């Protein structure tokens, strides 16, 4: 049985592209277009992995991720963040996600509500490179 991936992104083109890349590599996928739909789909479908955009209408990826990690039913599902947030905000988000919690955990927790134990299992910057994406997916799935 191929593993199921839930794509949460508000841009239809990105969803189509991501699902094509996943299909090419033997995964099946479903999608949701914001954090609210994303959580509903998670509870309903219990996918093997989530690809998560950070900037979305209604509920941001960060808010959705926090709820996911707090919910004992969902917290085990690996999450790979797929985002263009660094480019939009000018903040090196990868650095922020992975170095900041080690440097100043208190500040990191205040700004994101995350701790160093609850950071995402992978991180891919947009524009998306198919090979990089699949590498991150495999790593998060421990394949």
């Amino acid at each position, binding site marked *: 049985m191929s593993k199921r991936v839930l794509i949460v992104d508000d841009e239809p*083109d990105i969803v189509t592209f991501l699902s*094509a890349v996943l299909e090419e590599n033997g995964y099946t996928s479903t999608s949701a*277009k914001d954090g609210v739909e994303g959580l509903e789909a998670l509870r309903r479908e219990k996918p093997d992995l989530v690809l998560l955009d950070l900037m979305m209408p209604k509920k941001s990826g960060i808010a959705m991720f926090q709820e996911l990690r707090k919910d004992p039913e969902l917290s085990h599902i690996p999450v790979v963040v797929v985002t263009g947030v660094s480019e939009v905000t000018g903040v090196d988000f990868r650095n922020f996600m992975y170095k900041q919690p080690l440097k100043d955990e208190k500040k990191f927790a205040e700004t994101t509500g995350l701790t160093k134990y609850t950071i995402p299992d992978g991180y891919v910057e947009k524009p998306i490179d198919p090979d990089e994406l699949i590498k991150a997916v495999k790593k998060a799935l421990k394949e």
Partner: protein
Amino acid sequence: MAMELKNLLVIDDEAPILEMLEMSLASEGYHVLTAESGSHGLQVFKQHRPKLVLTDIKMPEMDGIEVLKRIKTMDRDTEVIVITGHGDMDSAISAIRHGASDFITKPIRDEILMLALERAKEKVRIHQQLRDYTENLEEKIEVCKVELKRAEAELIKNERLASIGETVAGLAHYIKNILTGLRGGMYMVNRGMAGDKPKMLQDGWAMVQRNIEKVSQLVLDLLQYSKDRVPERSMCRPNDIARDAMDLFQEKAGLHGIVLKAFFDEGLEEAYTDQEALYRVLLNLISNAIDACIFDPDTGKAWEVVLRTTLEEQNGQGRLVFEVSDNGTGMTDEVKAKLFSRFFSTKGGQGTGLGLLVTQKIIKELGGEISVDSTEGQGTTFTVRLDLQTPADHAPGVDER
């Protein structure tokens, strides 16, 4: 050898050693100054200011450590090499602590002395260079400061510069998103063909087309915005234009659970206006209204976008009114203030900030006005008013208003 590094002061209370050192160093090209006591040595130092000093440690009255300390307070860049008795490690350590650059032990061996002097000279040179660099740096910083001030003044004078930068950055991001879509589409077309997957090929091709359409729209918007246009008027039916614009969004609205409602004033029959331009205005406003609902975090709402047309009469002048309302996010005062002032978007990489500017420009060209009423969290209404004109208003000899 630099001039100042030729001068070398040697201090030793034993005359034979002093003479021997003088001869040996002179033959190496140094200009050797000598002194038989610490206090005499300091006098000579004050007079000639050599950069290199070689002093014995064990001397009556003032010993070498004291000489070292005093020279270092007078000129900390002077390198002092001390001569210690065989096995007198304590003195050597004490000398180094007080800033001696090196120590050599008796009996003095020529090659060791020369090596110590070479190292001392190197240190003097490095100090000198550092000082030069620092001074240069200060000069350079001064130049930079002047340059910066000039640039700053220019920037302040030309406020538009900043706004253009912002625009270009925003557009670049928008175009980059389109490129991502095109690349994604290409990937799918390629894989679809290679793997004989017609569905992937079709979806990929549709994606390429969609993004090419986005570029075309962007170019149109840019042209619309940058060029002065004379409206191309004809007799047309405003309600039909409104209906066409609305129909284009039925699918998108349905997808996001938004209800589109139309209230058209049947008394409004024909108007002499620019059909294409008006259509574009309504597309922009409806599209914004739908986005305001999509971005609304209040999921408890039943979102709706309402398009209303009215025929207004004021002082005998008929006016055509279009109203586009939504009950989406609404705007903060900050957003409202920026709305028409410059390229500004709240839609991240999905907006160019051009839509409302183009809308406003078209309405101005048509001689109308646009206004906005918005409450954060409750929704927004845009109202467009145009004088109901006839071909007679635009007959030759009548000025365009």
